[in-house]
């Protein structure tokens, strides 16, 4: 009986090792520290920088309508957006979705949100001004405001996303995709797709793009806690395009171990949201699989196999590792 109790409360290190689960110490010591140069971290945290890398390389990102960096530019806001009816304003160094304004339609003086609220130009200017002063940025530092295309979420996630936009995260090692998951917001996470705050994640099969597995708050699950709909069996559209974009971004950022977050637009397909230099490890629980065997597989490849033209050939093999 004691043995059964013990099994329920924790797992032995030997068993975790046998399943190839990557612990945080090993992730930092053996993978992140050696291949992620510290000087490149600011690139990853900066949304504007990430966008500026993606655009020339043809990696899809939400279209930027305007970048407001100085308080003086706020007066010219309406001209800057060139008549776009719907747009999103977000802080360049924000986190967790704070400070984001979504505008569904406007007439130059009154702005309407998708939820039905409205505010006037003065309110908008004030909000952007506080954004520039760093109210929503990490560490309170001065920031810029990005005005960009509003993403209409693809309807494949309709039954499993509550209150927010789901995103797809792909973890890449040496620019080869190793594991992927889709993060689905819940009521508990207040519409944010952040696993720490209670969102649900479903694993995505690396080769086919179909969802399976599932995790919520570090426990394995199979249905969405709010809607009860199964999280497995959904097919992510344009999956190959997504993997290629992720791989290209990883090359451009020159980071060896990285997570790239995508949002699926109804018309455009996957667009890059942001990159993450220290992606979390709950993706393993969603996949019911450890990362270590896949990372080792990549380490065992000759350099020419890891070069851009041939690296995607590894994906089916990676997906099949037990």
């Amino acid at each position, binding site marked *: 009986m004691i043995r059964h109790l013990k099994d329920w409360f924790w797992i032995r290190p030997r068993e975790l090792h046998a*399943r190839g689960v990557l612990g*945080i110490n090993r992730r930092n*010591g053996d993978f992140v520290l050696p291949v992620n140069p510290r000087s490149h971290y600011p690139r990853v945290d900066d949304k504007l920088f990430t966008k500026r890398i993606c655009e020339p390389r043809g990696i899809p990102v939400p279209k930027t309508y305007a970048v407001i960096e100085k308080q003086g530019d706020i007066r010219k806001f309406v001209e800057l957006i060139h008549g776009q009816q719907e747009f999103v304003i977000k802080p360049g160094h924000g986190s967790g979705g704070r400070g984001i304004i979504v505008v569904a339609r406007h007439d130059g003086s009154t702005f309407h949100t998708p939820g039905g609220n409205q505010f006037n130009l003065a309110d908008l200017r004030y909000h952007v001004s506080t954004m520039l002063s760093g109210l929503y940025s990490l560490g309170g530092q001065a920031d810029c405001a990005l005005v960009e295309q509003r993403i209409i979420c693809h309807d494949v996630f309709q039954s499993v996303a509550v209150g927010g936009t789901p995103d797809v995260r792909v973890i890449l090692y040496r620019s080869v995709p190793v594991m992927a998951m889709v993060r689905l917001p819940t009521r508990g996470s207040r519409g944010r797709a952040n696993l*720490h705050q209670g969102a649900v994640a479903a694993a995505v099969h690396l080769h*086919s793009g179909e969802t399976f597995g599932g995790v919520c708050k*570090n426990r*394995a699950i199979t249905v969405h806690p709010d809607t009860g709909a199964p999280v497995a069996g959904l097919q992510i559209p344009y999956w190959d395009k997504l993997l290629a974009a992720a791989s290209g971004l990883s090359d451009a950022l020159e980071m060896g171990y990285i997570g790239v977050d995508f949002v699926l637009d109804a018309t455009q397909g996957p667009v890059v949201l942001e990159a993450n230099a220290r992606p979390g490890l709950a993706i393993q629980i969603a996949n019911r699989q450890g990362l270590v065997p896949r990372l080792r597989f990549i380490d065992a490849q000759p350099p020419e196999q890891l070069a851009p033209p041939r690296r995607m050939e590894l994906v089916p093999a990676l997906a099949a590792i037990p």
Partner: protein
Amino acid sequence: MNARRATPWVICALLFAGVTGMGLRRHAEHQLQLTHGDTLWRLTYDVDFRAEKSTARVRVAFPNDAKTCRVFRQDVSYAGMRAERLRPSALPSRELGFAASRGEHNFSARFDIHLSPRARFRSSASDTTLTADARAELLHGTPALQTSDPAVVQTLQKLRAGAGKNGNFVQKVFEHCRSELEPGDPALPQDAAAVLQRGTATPLGRVRAFVALCRAAKIPARLVTGFEVKEALQAQPHTWAEIFSDKAWEPFDPENGFAGEIPHTFLAVRHDGGDVVRTTGAKQVHTGYSIVRLPSGLGAYRAAHRSLLGIVDLTRLPLEMHEAMMLILLLPLGGLMTAIFRTIIGIRTFGTFTPTLIALSFIFADWRTGIVVFLAVLALGLVSRSFLDRLKLLMVPRLSIVLTLVVLLICLSVSLLDYIHLTPSAQAVLLPMVILTMTIERFYLASEEDSVRFALQLLTGTVVVGVCCYLILRWGAVGRMLLAYPEMHFFTIAVLILIGRYTGYRLTELFRFRDFLATKPGPDSPPP
């Protein structure tokens, strides 16, 4: 060079450096010998008293470093009492104050003293100038040293009549006190006037008469209490006098007949006269002193000549610095503890040094007051956060408002504690406040950027690790060892390197990934 290959070499080098350092130090200590004529002694105080009021106070004079004596070790125990910092005085004595609550109390102290006849130690206070205020103080009459009493004035006139210059005059006063006063009954009053009138005195009365006469003659004089250092299970304090002439203090002991010079075995403990232990609000005070000679042992030989190697010897520093040094030397162990908790157990904290700093601030504060202040400030912080959120303020002004509220709350709390007679000391308040403000700032940032739950998790972790660090910092035995052998921290660095290279699972991960046991291996999805 590959980190994996370099690590064992670095560890070996550190271990080697540590062991070699310790070995060399021990060897050097064995080589030094006690100079001929120097002696080592242990002086023990044992004070019992009963506090009637809840604000009973005890002031105890401690022996201090002087030219012929050096206190090289000190152990004080005062269970159930609270130490108070007294304002530093210009006198060369050291005094410590304690506040006791109602009931029976015992205070004991042990001092290991190195006496040298050749006057080769550096005195911890330089006592060669007398300010006008101090001079006036030392010429003033007191109830026991009446300078304007007729008996004193008459004796003075009589002595003046027969004396020449000032130096001679002091000798005449000395001779008078030494030979003209007969040994007397202790039951009779022993203040200067009564003694001179009666013509009989105890040793204390004799020296009081001497000091009163000198003061009446406008020569700054003071009573010095101390011990004659010789083996005695029941040592009695002895009082002699010092007068200030020609930019120096000259000792005079009319009881034993020493004028201008006293033996190096006279250990002065208090320079403003009276008893070694002074109490207010305490009854049934019993004081016991004992002096025992110590065999020549380690810890006392610090050579008189300065050598550069003396810099690596921390025990050479005066005793007051020892406590501060021991605390500083224990801080890296706090860092080690934080590293173990984070990397091996998996408990995360705000920052790397915050738990150690919190523990440090609790060392100076009384831990009960400290916890109350900590919780109150945290509660205030959380409450004010919800108000401040509505004002939509920028980060730096917002946090400064929190600091202002914290300051106001702390001042109010200190005042409240004083009102109910639990006054904390100044240090108890200042250091914790600085550290608490830092912690609150991080707590807010964490609760905003992640979630309140996560911030509380980090806070709990910080407190848990902080408590462990506190226990380490209180570990006097290890502190003393580190003071004697600071190179032991090479071992600390070696352990930290090993922890830094640890890539195994954290204990919390064994809990976090427990579902891997229940689920079958491999993705449960159709084959590609």
